[in-house]
């Protein structure tokens, strides 16, 4: 049974609280039990508690499959990019290096690439993926477009990304603030810029206390 077309995956990093429930739950999924396929990292813990969860975006034209010399990565008709097929995978790492989102993991002990398959064992029988079921903040959400529109008035989904000249559309959606609505997310736009993260300062903790502080210090 395919994953129902009206059930979609939505990611909203703005909601993520870094609790790792998704990471811990991913390793409970029956198809890859004991291994977590989710990446969850602090963007820059020294300056913020912000974290970003990354699951497979399930690209319409998956780069991982395109670069696979062994044709081990299949995309099912319902748009789910499966983990590498064990008999075919030669553990060459091409997919790991090529995926623009950095999703596949190489399990060197098993000589096998593993990645998120959107809990195919669950989603193909009408259930929600582990991560999006447990996520306490609904940063990972699996449901219908109507549900997301009704619940998320401040943001809107997009599934178009640009990495330099490469345009990618994905099965998984990323929520963007409505104020920042754009036709696509330009992922590498800031790559040439200085690492601004280091310059961010939460001055709220060190601000002047008094409304007239400026006048007083003058």
């Amino acid at each position, binding site marked *: 049974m395919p994953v129902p077309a009206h059930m979609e995956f939505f990611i909203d990093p703005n909601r993520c609280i870094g609790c790792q*429930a998704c990471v811990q739950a991913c390793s409970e999924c029956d198809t890859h039990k004991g291994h977590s396929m989710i990446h969850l990292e602090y963007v820059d813990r020294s300056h913020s508690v912000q974290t970003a969860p990354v699951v497979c975006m399930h690209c319409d034209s998956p780069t991982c499959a395109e670069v696979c010399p062994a044709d081990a990565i299949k995309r099912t008709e319902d748009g789910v990019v499966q983990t590498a097929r064990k008999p075919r995978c030669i553990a060459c790492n091409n997919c790991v290096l090529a995926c623009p989102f950095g999703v596949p993991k190489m399990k060197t002990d098993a000589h096998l690439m593993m990645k998120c398959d959107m809990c195919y064992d669950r989603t193909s029988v009408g259930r929600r993926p582990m991560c999006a079921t447990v996520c306490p903040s609904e940063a990972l959400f699996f449901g219908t477009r109507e549900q997301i529109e009704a619940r998320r008035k401040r943001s809107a989904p997009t599934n178009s990304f640009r990495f330099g000249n490469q345009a990618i559309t994905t099965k998984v959606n990323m929520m963007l603030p409505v104020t920042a609505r754009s036709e696509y997310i330009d992922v590498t736009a800031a790559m040439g810029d200085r690492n601004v993260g280091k310059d961010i300062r939460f001055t709220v903790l060190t601000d002047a*206390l008094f409304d007239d502080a400026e006048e007083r210090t003058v």
Partner: protein
Amino acid sequence: MANAPDQTSLFVDRFGPHPAYATEVHLETSGRIDRLVSTHCCFCGQQCGINLKVRDNAVVGFEPREDFPFNEGKLCPKGVKRYLQGMHPDRLLSAFERDDSSPSGFRPMTYERAVERVAAEIDRIQREHGPDAFAVLSGASLTTEKTYLMGKFARVCLKTRYIDYNGRLCMVSAGAGNKKAFGIDRAANPWSDIPKAEVVWIAGANVAECAPITTSYVWQARENGARIVVVDPRITPIARTCDLFLPVKPGRDIALFNGVLQLMIENDWIDGDFIERHTVGFDAVAEHVREWTPRRTAEVTGISEKAIRKAAEWWGQASTSFLLHARGIEHHTHGVQNVLGAINMVLASGRIGREGCGYATITGQANGQGGREHGQKCDQLPGWRDIENDEHRSYIASVWDVEPETIPHSGVDAYEIFRKIEAGEIRGLLSICFNPKVSLPDNSFVTRMLEKLDFFVAIDFFLSETAQHADIVLPGSLHEEDEGTVTQIEGRVIKINKAVDPPGDARQDWRIVQDIAHALGRPHGFSFESPREIFDELRIASRGGVADYSGITYEKIQKQNGVFWPCPGDDHPGTPRLFEADSWNPVAKGSGPFYFPDGKARMNVAPYTPPAEDVDDEYPLMLTTGRVVSQFLSGTQTRRIGPLVDQYPEPLCEMHPRLAEALGIRTGDPVIVESRRGTMRLPAIVVSTIRPDTVFIPYHWPGARSANQLTVSAQDPISKIPEYKVCAVRIRKEA
């Protein structure tokens, strides 16, 4: 009496803590489980619904439980990995006796002999030193049935006045504040009111880490257009994207609440009609807060004047709102005053008792709510009755079939019990579900007192750091090995269902307690055959009390997916929202929505006082303690679950770069943190998400990694909660 055994390799081999990971039996569960048991998580007060996978009388995994309305399948990492405590190598499978000649420090013994010895020691101590020489420490992670039984056991069987519980470390400031202001202590609203609020004010609550599922309610409010105000010395994950962050100096919350109220009054952002009709005491409060000008408030709280004005404007002008607070404002020597100050802001706004208008403390422990209602507190009888009220004593005596004068009078709080051990008044102790050696402040004192006891018996499923001091350890039950009710964060009574039988010689806790009563030759009132029988007696005992459970049955809980107390009759559906305008309660009897004879809420003058131990030249920094998302309380369970240990393996000392720079400290450097009580060494993490004058250490670890070596044992004079959230320390980089 006993020193804890040396932590030899044989001791650790037997008792751990070993971090458990999924093994073959856990990994290959697909299609091979015997049954799925619908129940709740064993950890925090949210009590998320969860389904446990059971095979061959063992919990081998979980499935999200989407039918429970509070969490709809959501779980935090603790809930996801909780199943790994089943089949754990550290599990106590028999009774143990302390024995220095045994290589592990303990020798297994038969359950029957252990119970006999416990009874003999209790009898001896009480014969020689009187009934009050034996004390009981209990816990709020137990089911309500067990907490009820512990209170009854202390008063009826042991006839000791000295019983208290670990909620003393947790919910008592909120409880006392609520009682003073509303006459009842329960979340005033179900969480479904949070997304309907225009302003959500979160004071001293690390929601994302300590009550993670609550995050989705707050975020939903934000999606609906609410403004989120967070008061905290640290930018926690819930604070990261809030609309207004108020970085309060630890221990100064009441100044902020008074300052905001002052601005509300000054700008007429108050509900005069509500104040007039439904409250008492406004004038005195208004007079008191007059001195809390924005400037003074800023001076004391360390929050900018501008932010204070903005907060008052938003809170004052909202038409709906929800105020949440937790241990951040409650763990103080003026914790009750902080709570009263927060409640004054709510009452002055008139926004309570209506849809989208709410107030609640975020209860911490699994049964933090139910565990504080039915008599394991030192001054309380079931149904939230007062142990010093003759009418209440008579009623409970009739339920227990004893003479009212045989019920002991009020005892003392959990920390004071240790002081009474020091004074030699208490000689023997039974503890269950409490690990004070890790969780109480200034814990080197606690350790010395455990060593001083003539006799100590612990009921536990793992050998906690406290149980290591026991003369006898009785093997109790895990959450999934028993049934019973728990009252979660919203005041909803829910049902824990049994998934497996206790392994080996382990027993359900209520059976152990009854066995002791029988071995003592004092069996009267301790012949329950099931938790359901205990619950049925509890229903009668609570009837007519403020916390009235009389209309709640296991079947009703099942049918309604939980019942909010008060539920005073068989056909009563329960009370999700308190203080609705036309509501009836047994204290006001129709004269108003609040639980006082006149039906009116009390506004209490809440004066500011600085923390018990302020900073000085010698100890110039403030230490605040708290939790991380992957660990729970004293860690007896979560330090034994491998994936949770890996997520945050050891305590780190959070400090601001400005402070770190001055001290020459970088992330990862070992630092020495010293207070007047103790010293600890731990790695630093330098983050600009904390006030520069404050450092943070999580408290889940024992021994040299315990933050409570440093904390101060000063307590709130009313609630007796310890001041975990602020004490003075100094820090240096390890040479």
